[in-house]
């Protein structure tokens, strides 16, 4: 796997992890406004990182949860996560 892809993938994993962790925390602390604010900041950064990754390396999600595909059907292209 290309070094650049490893790097942007790592950034994406970090942002998604922050979002997941805040999501779980908010599930049991829905009244915490500070956590909600942080969650919203992460969501904004994550959306940008996803667009950036998908433009270069193809869709992250199946079933249409991606931008319209202009360059062909990249979904089935390698590498699959367990092959990286």
């Amino acid at each position, binding site marked *: 796997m290309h070094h650049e892809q490893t790097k942007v993938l*790592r950034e994406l994993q970090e942002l998604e992890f922050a979002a*997941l962790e805040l999501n*779980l925390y908010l599930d*049991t602390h829905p009244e915490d406004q500070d956590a909600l604010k942080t969650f919203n900041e992460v969501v904004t950064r994550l959306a940008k990182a996803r667009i950036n990754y998908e433009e270069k390396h193809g*869709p992250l999600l199946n079933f249409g*949860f991606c931008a319209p595909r202009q360059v062909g059907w990249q979904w089935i292209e390698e590498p699959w*996560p*367990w092959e990286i």
Partner: protein
Amino acid sequence: MWLYEKKLQYPVKVSNRDLRMAKFLLTQYGGPDGELSAAVKYLNQRYTMPTNRAKGTLTDIGTEELAHWEIIATMIYKLMKGATPEELRRAGLGSHYAMHGDALFPADANGVPWTAAYIQAHGDPVADLQDNMAGEQKARATYEHLIDLTDDPDLRDTLRFLREREVVHFQRFGELLDHVQGYMNSKKYF
């Protein structure tokens, strides 16, 4: 509805092929306190939980457990990749090869297939959440044993991440238990 995201939650790197370690890791793939058990247990319990916090938390933690199942699968796949039948046999995976070839299979470290008998749902949120908290501690202990069994720094790093997640899940289930108990007491007396 679930979507598949074409990435791992956390990177998996392995330094060397290690068939014995692959065999040990099977306990988290298809063993009693493994990631598959956790995912099926939580995603099955959520339907009859009494509060929205409980439904949400079980949905989200159950989904995260599936991502951990994929991480464990990736570790086993990489640790076994390219092994010959003779090498598998010497590592105690000869019977695995006989039954499954190079494929993965949800069985424990001794080859016993995964069964729904490992999990429970009582329809009693206090009993179920206590059971889930115990399950998280059992998974944490298992990850500590697995960390002790390898000196591969990359593998240990990913196992430490998974161990830490069990600690967080335990914490969230504890908060949920308090909340659900408060909810049930308020229903009983007022």
